[in-house]
């Protein structure tokens, strides 16, 4: 079996709207165990587990947790459920199938770091998830797992649902913080980082939905056991959103180290009508585009780091040979033109010029000089943008220039 169900083990097995159903399936056991532990011991377990953030960048989770626990006064915990990256649907699946697991993870981390206020920032388009989560919060409050004096241990933690109006950039930490404060979603100058000055300039921890959903398992079974799953550098399992021209599209949970080819062919059952693969985009619109011969690459943060992108969200988009590389690139880049917040120059003005240049290739008007301009501009946007949007949006251009360079030359007018 390639699949390994840790986070998705309750999917379809319990009624997500029933807290009793969750409790019967080991629900809130981790919280009970956690509140009997010293807060710093919980963070120690997270460190031993070597879990890395599931939002894409793969930052070791314990570092942010420890930084937050070292701060005093008001602190905030935010669950990033603004799953805006095209091709991703794992967070929605967790929210719709096992919402209490996310909440339990948040409460445990509130206890471990001494936070009293939490937010779950849910993507504007996810109305169903929002409704479910509001009910989840209410049920947890009624049962004493949330609110005042949780489990009679004398600690308080509240969670509110927040949402934007569907802006992609609100998935970026500081834009999300601005949005939670009621301002337009535009990033801030870093440093200071959110764990120093986040919501209302107070220390703030932001983790992805999948990261929070992992915490109860780590607390319940121990960090050491968790670290045995996956590879030495990427522990645990990964939810994979498989989409595109494959037969069995859907969500799969696999241990880290599984190859992309196995996910596409063993779980996804290969391509429709036995077509061949032209390219695969990893992570979403901000991820790299790789050719068929690279599919034996394993799903692993260290491998993904080569691409400087949010590849780690675990989306795999399969594109067959009916499509041209420029079809995909143009869709990606128009998406970024629309989603740029406009605050910094390279992202605001750069994406527009990238689209202009791509159109030149598409209409066979591009020269070799345009190819150089495109490559140059893509690197400048990546190197100089203020936030994660511009820093990762060029991954598909840069990777395609590396792996599909001939496709560009084929369009150049000499």
């Amino acid at each position, binding site marked *: 079996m390639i699949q390994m169900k840790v986070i998705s083990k309750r999917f379809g097995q319990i009624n997500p709207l029933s807290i009793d159903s969750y409790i019967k399936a080991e629900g809130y056991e981790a919280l009970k165990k956690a509140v009997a532990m010293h807060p710093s011991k919980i963070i120690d377990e997270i460190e031993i587990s070597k879990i890395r953030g599931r939002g894409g960048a793969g930052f070791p989770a314990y570092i942010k947790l420890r930084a937050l626990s070292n701060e005093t006064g008001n602190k905030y915990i935010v669950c990033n459920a603004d799953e805006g990256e095209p091709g991703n649907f794992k967070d929605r699946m967790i929210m719709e199938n096992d919402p209490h697991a996310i909440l339990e993870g948040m409460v445990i981390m509130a206890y471990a770091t001494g936070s009293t206020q939490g937010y779950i920032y849910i993507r504007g388009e996810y109305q169903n998830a929002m409704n479910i989560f509001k009910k989840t919060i209410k049920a947890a409050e009624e049962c004493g797992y949330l609110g005042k004096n949780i489990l009679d241990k004398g600690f308080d933690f509240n969670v509110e649902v927040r949402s934007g109006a569907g*802006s992609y950039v609100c998935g970026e930490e500081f834009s999300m913080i601005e949005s939670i404060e009621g301002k*337009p979603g*535009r990033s801030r*100058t*870093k*440093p200071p980082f959110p764990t120093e000055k986040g919501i209302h300039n107070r220390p703030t921890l932001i983790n992805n939905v999948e990261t929070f959903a992992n915490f109860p398992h780590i607390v319940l079974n121990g960090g050491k056991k968790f670290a045995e799953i996956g590879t030495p550098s990427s522990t645990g399992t990964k939810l994979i959103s498989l989409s595109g021209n494959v037969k069995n599209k859907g969500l799969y949970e696999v241990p880290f180290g599984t190859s992309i080819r196995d996910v596409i062919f063993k779980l996804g059952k290969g391509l429709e009508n036995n077509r061949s693969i032209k390219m695969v985009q990893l992570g979403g619109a901000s991820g790299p585009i790789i050719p068929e011969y690279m599919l034996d690459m394993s799903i692993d943060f260290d491998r993904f780091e080569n691409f*400087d992108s949010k590849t780690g969200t675990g989306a795999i988009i399969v594109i067959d040979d009916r499509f041209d590389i420029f079809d995909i690139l143009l869709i990606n880049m128009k998406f970024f*033109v*629309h*989603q*740029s*917040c*406009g*605050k*910094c*120059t*390279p992202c*605001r*003005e*750069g*994406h*527009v*010029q990238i689209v*202009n240049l791509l159109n030149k290739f598409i209409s066979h008007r591009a020269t070799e*000089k345009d190819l150089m*301009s495109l490559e*140059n*501009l893509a690197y*400048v946007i*990546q*190197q*100089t*943008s*203020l936030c994660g949007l511009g*820093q990762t949006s060029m991954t598909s251009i840069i990777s395609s220039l590396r792996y599909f360079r001939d496709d560009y030359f084929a369009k150049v007018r000499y």
Partner: protein
Amino acid sequence: MVNFKINNIDISVEENTTILQAARKHHIDIPTLCNYPDLEIKSECRVCVVEINGEKKLFTSCSTIAKEGMIVNTNSPKVLNARKTILELILANHDAVCATCPKNLNCELQTLANKLGIDENRFPTVLEVKPIDNKNPALIRNINRCIKCGRCIDVCKSIQSMNVLDVMGRGQNIEITPAYGKFLTDESCTYCGQCSSVCPVGAIIEKDDTDPVWEALNNPNLHVIVQVAPAVRVSLGEELGMEPGSIVTEKVVSALKYLGFDAVYDTDFTADLTIIEEGNELIDRITNGGVLPIMTSCCPGWINYVEQKYPEILDHISSCKSPQQMFGALAKSYYAEKMKLDPKNIFVVSIMPCTAKKYEAKREEMRIDSVNPDVDVVLTTRELGKMVRQMGINFESIEGSPFDKPFGITTGAAAIFGATGGVMEAALRTVYEVVNKEELKDINFTMVRGTDGIKEAEVELGGQKVKVAVAHTLANAKILSDQVKNGTSPYVFIEIMACPGGCIGGGGQPYGTTAEIRQKRIDAIYKVDENMTIRKSHENPDIKALYDDYLEKPLGHKSHQLLHTHYHSRKK
């Protein structure tokens, strides 16, 4: 101390110093665009990026703190390429018709493009031309030139607490604009012009009124006279290439004469007059139980603010017109009579450090014949600089000459109107001596000088101690206004100036004004005061003569007709 390297030079700076600050301290030039000395760090333009060894990304030097052992390169090929590319991107969405832009040769973007050696732009223009906001008498917003650096937002928000401008929309479509993309006239804009003063390009500029002045100067039927505000004598030199803080009082007169004005007068004269009227108003309110504290009325930005934001406290505002308007009213009455001229044939121009004065001169209250404005045209220091350049005058070498009569004698008290605290100090010099009937031992009220946001002092008047306060910038004015509104103000007299540093930091002053430059202009203003023979308004013999000749007495019937006004609520 933090030790690190920039361009292979060993550098040692205090903790929490940014790379940009450290570089500047060591005379290493890193180009910037959105950065402005007095405003918050935005790191939005990304022009100031540098390379740090071991890092793939480039870092904005304005916001990155220098760390021990860092190896920074400010001019690596990667950096130079990124900077150039960013500037090309900005230029591709900018109305870059430099030769016909008012900011030509004064534009930070233009200078930077030249410095970075941009001879061609790889990127085609993506500018979508949008309408220009020119519905008000003071400022023009040309969004097609805007490069979205955010300085104007910052100055309007944090220095002035007005929040008139902000970012609208997103991505390539963002606009820096009043709410809902409307006009400045739809907002509580005070026309202080601080936004025009910090704008690196020509996106916010004062409305140019030099054309009607040229026309008037060339009209043989008009007697064209001009008044010069106190702050202009310490800034016009700077506008024309001299050192900040150069005192050029007499050069200004000569230059104006050369431009063809029939007579050149000093607003300092009506500043002295303001002190007599306002001082008597204060004494009257104290002795007869009038509304206190009394608040100054010389600053039109402040009047625009209070009429729109605090109409509840309008009774506190002195009924005195500003010195500019007192001059206009006298020019078209007393002066006309004296010179045997029809007021309709007198054309009054003011040279002001201010954009809001353009609005003030257009007010209906400022027409003694209810039809024609008392002051016909207001020019800023920058506009006068433009006219001097147009005429090819070598300002630095021009021989000076004195102001014309009958408004010839002025005092040091009037000169300091140009700096924050100056009106207060001038008033105290007079009120103290008039009320206490004794000479001041030291006429320098240093308590109300300096650039603290709010200053206060205590003076003895008629046997009782009273408190006075001075505020500059509208954010500080808000604090004192709230006290007055809530009835908790402990003061009898409050001076307010809308711009940082007072008029010397006005919205119409030379570009590139910073705290350092403001200080130089302030120092110059006090030097002008020191060098004056007469330093108290009530000792000005020409003022005495004016009362004897024409006005009769302070707060008298004629004064009320000509020198006082009223305000009304314009709450939005």
